[in-house]
């Protein structure tokens, strides 16, 4: 007997099966939704050690102490869009926890919720005001001369500006999904913001409303973000762990503080529309941000499928800074997945920890830094964590065995050959 053109019997059978599954799922889902769900985010304990206006500084003490611990504290600066709680969304996928467990003395900026009175705050106020005060506070508290600085997204842009204007206070710089080159058409955000009149927006709203930003983000991919995401939820709502994580993500994603008006205006005008930062022409607080002043080691991590900060917007920074020790790492994920996906949890935080640890041994008093940097070997690699080179794998093994110095020599040698060739 011939196969029917339309397998009506099979389709009907599947439909019947799905209807039955949906019924069972709905019953189980209702039990789950009515039960006590653990949807708390940012549950890792911390102390607020510094406060200025709406801004707070969170301190996470290392959960272990060993001689291997890093001497230099790490300050994480999050974006003004959404909240830093994303780094601690759930206990088993927490960048904060990973840092703590590796012995990092971690500080994190909480920008709070700007109100009408914050509308006049500029990038200068955030970078040379709040950030500089926070860095000074940590230097004093920890009795060190330099800190490690890690910036996320727009916070990465702030960190780059800070590192260029205050290089003496920063030992190592890490930027993650950080937009620096705005002259790209890879991401819709870059296209849309070129059409926007930020003056009009700010004159109308005062601050840039978080909800309006969120609507814009949802419109970047409505099919996935407004339909498919919730279809996925319906299909998995009989899975308690899935539901809890989904709600955690929903809590985070729609927890959107407004952006101070003047900061937004300058960010859109000078960065997105004029692309001044990457050309070292951006003026902040009356000073030019010269990227060649960034001479400390720079690790730049970005995501291959980032629809907000596409690779074209993130990868160029390492080629324009003054540092001779820079590395680009492209992860096989998206803008948020880089911090929360279970896959990148094994790659993202461990890479930063390793990279910082490798450079922590080189701790030296500030007055010797400029002298020694001139002698340093150029290390510039564009690597992907997806395809680990044999040298990286070897380095990981040796790093665990405490042979970092040997590794560095080998890596520098290999890189030298690659650059030369």
């Amino acid at each position, binding site marked *: 007997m011939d196969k029917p053109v339309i397998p009506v019997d099979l389709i009907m059978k599947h439909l019947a099966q799905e209807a039955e599954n949906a019924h069972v799922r709905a019953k189980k889902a209702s039990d789950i939704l009515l039960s006590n769900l653990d949807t708390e985010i940012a549950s890792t304990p911390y102390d607020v050690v510094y406060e200025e206006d709406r801004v707070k500084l969170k301190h996470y003490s290392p959960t272990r102490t060993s001689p291997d611990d890093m001497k230099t504290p790490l300050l994480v600066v999050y974006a003004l869009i959404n909240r830093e709680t994303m780094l601690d969304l759930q206990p088993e996928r927490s960048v904060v926890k990973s840092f703590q467990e590796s012995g990092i003395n971690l500080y994190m900026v909480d920008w709070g919720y700007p109100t009408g009175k914050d509308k006049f705050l500029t990038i200068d106020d955030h970078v040379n*005001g709040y950030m500089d005060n926070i860095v000074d506070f940590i230097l004093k508290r920890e009795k060190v001369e330099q800190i490690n600085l890690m910036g996320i997204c727009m916070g990465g842009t702030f960190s780059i500006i800070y590192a260029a204007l205050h290089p003496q206070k920063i030992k190592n710089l890490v930027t993650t999904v950080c937009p620096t080159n705005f002259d790209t058409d890879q991401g819709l955000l870059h296209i849309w913001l070129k059409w926007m009149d930020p003056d009009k927006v700010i004159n109308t709203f*005062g601050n840039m409303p978080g909800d309006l930003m969120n609507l814009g983000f949802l419109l970047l991919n409505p099919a996935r973000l407004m339909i498919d995401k919730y279809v996925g939820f319906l299909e998995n709502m009989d899975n308690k762990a899935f539901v809890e994580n989904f709600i955690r993500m929903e809590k985070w994603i729609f927890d959107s503080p407004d952006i101070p008006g003047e900061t937004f205006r300058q960010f859109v005008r000078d960065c997105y529309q004029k692309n001044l930062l990457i050309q070292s022409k951006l003026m902040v607080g009356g000073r030019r941000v010269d990227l060649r002043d960034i001479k400390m080691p720079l690790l730049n991590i970005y995501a291959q499928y980032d629809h907000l900060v596409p690779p074209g917007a993130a990868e160029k920074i390492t080629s324009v800074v003054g540092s001779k020790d820079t590395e680009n790492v492209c992860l096989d994920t998206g803008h948020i997945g880089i911090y929360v996906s279970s896959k990148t949890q094994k790659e993202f935080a461990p890479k930063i920890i390793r990279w910082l640890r490798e450079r922590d041994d080189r701790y030296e008093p500030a007055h010797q830094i400029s002298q020694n940097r001139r002698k340093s070997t150029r290390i510039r690699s564009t690597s992907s964590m997806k395809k680990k080179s044999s040298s990286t794998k070897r380095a990981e093994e040796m790093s665990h065995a405490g042979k970092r110095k040997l590794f560095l020599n080998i890596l520098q040698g290999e890189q030298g050959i690659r650059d030369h060739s």
Partner: protein
Amino acid sequence: MDNQERPIPDQQTLISEWMKMANQLWAKSGSGPAGPSSEEDAPPKKENARVLQDAFLSTIKSFTAISTALSEPSAVDAVFRGTATLPDITSNFLQSGMQAFLTLQHQAFEKVNSLNERSEPYSFDNLDQETLQSWSNIYKKEIRRYFNIPQLGLNRYHQERVNNALDKYNLFSSCLAEFLQLIQMPFEKTNKMMHEKIETLTKKGNLPADSREYYRMWVKTLEGHFMTLFQSSEYNETFSNTLAALEDYLGARNDIIQDMLQTYPIPTNKEMDDLYKEVYLLKKKVRKLEKANGKG
């Protein structure tokens, strides 16, 4: 028969007669109600009622005077001459509406004709926005000017603000309608494509049995259409115009709220902004001084 012999009064005479009768009626009612008419008889606690009554009588007297003047044949003639110009005003006023209607009808016919044209997948080059565009043009060319008629008198300023807000709201609604129409186009195109895909699969005998497979096909096609749309300059222009129109409307609305708030003993946004700015600048100055003195 008498009735037949009586001359038929013309329109002016009829109106004049009616006016006279009306005057008599109002004059009678204006003479006041029966009962206590003198001030001595009226109880003192009804002083307010007396004031109201006086105002009423005065209004009636004015009305009677005006009606008497109007009942003169020369005045009635003038009224008729004035009335004769009414159709001109009405006609001018309606002309814009009629023109708008005809333009729309024309657009509708063109749209019907274009229904048979095939829609290209992943292409938003020839966006069918004519109908909404004509609404928008009609509003901008014909209707909008009525909101810009110069206002007079004590309330001129406030009336202009209200008219401006109404105008901005209409412009925003028109932009929003265009934007929403654009946003729904990927759905329209996706559905059309899905029909074609299913038809092809049916012919080939490859129809998936799993319904989720259809959903996956649909959502993937939809995503593709959205991505194509979002990169088109038409979309970006419409999006940008809608946002600008929203900002204009909110600005105009806030102006009215601002005016209203000024009558209450609470600070307005503008006043708060001035204060915020002052505090901001002062704080900045203090921090700078603190840093300079090594206290920061």
